[in-house]
């Protein structure tokens, strides 16, 4: 099979989702964001919701997600995306509405908006990228930074006596009456990516069926912030993040 055969449409086995445009991404090589963006684009396409989706982007590394996925977007203030998404969904109930937020956005400055939107059972999905660090501002401590983990604002390692403990907000969300589906996934292997996609699909479908609010945490790497190669970052995540943030469904109100 030569190149001309390989590029024939009938031989296509994998392609970029139509909703992803050709704008060059600003993410660092090895970052998890690009994979999760692609999964969201695929799920929206597969659900046939290209013309009925509104995303809410955060303040943080994913602030520019609206440059890469060709749907309508609203760019929220830091932490406020669940409040913004609440209003959109209440006013346009037949739209697929989701927010995309990092750990600082969702679990520090936006804790109140996150907990209350989830507990009201808003028919939205929150995609939560947890890489345990503030990426965009240059690697400061996040609410999910592990004990002992070094960042620019805890350079000697997070000490609970000084900086307190990392917050398991997803476990908290699973306790709320309003949540339908709460899950923790990752995207460091093809198998994990497939599982994460299924989780996003389930969350989006729940939100369209009026089952309540949905939280999909993706335990992610920030190899730049962690100062590791992408490969080492994946290994470090498996060895250190997964024991504290175990993967799997925390709640599934079938």
């Amino acid at each position, binding site marked *: 099979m030569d190149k001309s055969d390989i590029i024939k449409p009938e031989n296509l086995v994998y392609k970029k989702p139509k909703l992803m445009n050709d704008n060059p991404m600003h993410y660092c090589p090895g970052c998890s964001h690009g994979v999760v963006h692609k999964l969201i684009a695929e799920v929206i396409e597969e659900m046939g919701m*290209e*013309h*009925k*989706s*509104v995303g*809410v*982007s955060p303040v943080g590394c994913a*602030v520019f997600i*609206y440059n890469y996925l*060709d*749907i*309508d*977007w*609203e*760019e*929220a*203030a830091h932490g*406020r995306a669940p*409040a*913004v*998404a*609440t*209003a*959109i969904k*209440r*006013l*346009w109930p037949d*739209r697929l509405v989701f927010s995309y937020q990092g750990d600082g956005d969702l679990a520090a400055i936006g804790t*109140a*908006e996150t907990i*209350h939107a989830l507990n009201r059972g808003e028919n939205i999905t929150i995609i939560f990228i947890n890489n345990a660090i503030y990426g965009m501002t240059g690697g400061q401590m996040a609410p999910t930074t592990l004990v002992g983990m070094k960042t620019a604002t805890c350079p000697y390692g997070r000490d609970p006596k000084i900086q307190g403990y990392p917050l398991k907000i997803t476990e908290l969300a699973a306790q709320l009456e309003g949540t339908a589906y709460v899950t923790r996934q990752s995207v460091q292997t093809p198998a994990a990516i497939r599982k994460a996609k299924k989780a996003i699909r389930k969350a989006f479908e729940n939100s369209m069926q009026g089952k309540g609010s949905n939280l999909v945490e993706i335990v992610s790497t920030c190899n730049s912030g962690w100062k590791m190669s992408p490969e080492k970052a994946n290994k470090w995540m498996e060895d250190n993040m997964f024991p504290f943030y175990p993967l799997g469904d925390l709640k599934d109100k079938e």
Partner: protein
Amino acid sequence: MAQEVLLMKGNEAIARAAILCGADAYFGYPITPQSEVLETLAELKPWETTGMVVLQAESEVAAINMVYGGAATGKMVWTSSSSPGVSLKQEGISYIAGAELPCLIVNVMRGGPGLGTIQPSQADYFQTTKGGGHGDYRLIALAPASVQEMADFVELGFKLAFKYRNPAIILSDGVIGQMMEKVVLPEQKPRRTDAEVIEQCPWAANGKAEGRKPNIITSLEMDPQKMEVRNLHLQAKYREIEENEVRYEEIQCDDAEYLIVAFGSCARIGQKAIQMARAEGIKVGLLRPITLWPFPTKAIQGYANKVKGMLSLELNAGQMIEDIRLAVNGTIPVEHFGRLGGIVPGPDEVVNALKEKLIKH
């Protein structure tokens, strides 16, 4: 059919008027002295009649961000609060102004600073007209002086907000919000259908219709050249609003030798004060700015060579007086009279202040 005249509080009038003019959603949080707004909406259950969404948010911060979310989809959304709560909303208001979204904000002012008092005040004039949040932006600010205007300014506020894609604010106070007066409410208008919203607001982010590019609502621009262009565009819009939307009322100004300038509840006190002063032979008129921004600068400037002095009557330590002084540019004396901490002065105090601060000199 004769229009029905009702008796109600300003806060109730504003809630009823919003339902009647076809508003799509209200997001709020309780705070004295404006809690009757949310209470009235909850009692009237407009979600069962017009379909209007009413939601008590977890904070004023969440409420204004819900307004941001709803406004970005092209719907008619609004919120209300009182001074400390409006301080919390400032971040969101800046984002709404930066993203050029239409919405209506109501501030039923109470005394500050800090937790202050639940009694009436007009001390948020600076916050409302000079920024409040970060960045160079303006709010279209309407100051009602009666319960009737509380009702009327809802529709006017929304009209101006959508005309200029800019947040509008009704700057009321604890007097106007809490007092009961006669009011004629507008006729019920239907809410716009989703199709009408999409047609009227082609900029709105409510699902990328086939054939159009994605709509992205944001105030972010990393390139300083582009951010300057964005700012210049805002400034050009603000100049247009200043040119076209100044509103004010003149009472007995024709033969006036002195002018009281007052807005909102103070204008009502001023009205009585000019009657009392005229009974003593002092020719005083009242100029009432209805739009605090855009400010009636030219109108006030026009009186600078007609009157001997102006008294800025405000329930604060002297805020609007700065705009009056800028308007007359040092040509005549401009003095301030106001009470603080939630105290509302009587008209006799105003007449005395007029005599002591302007006439005796």
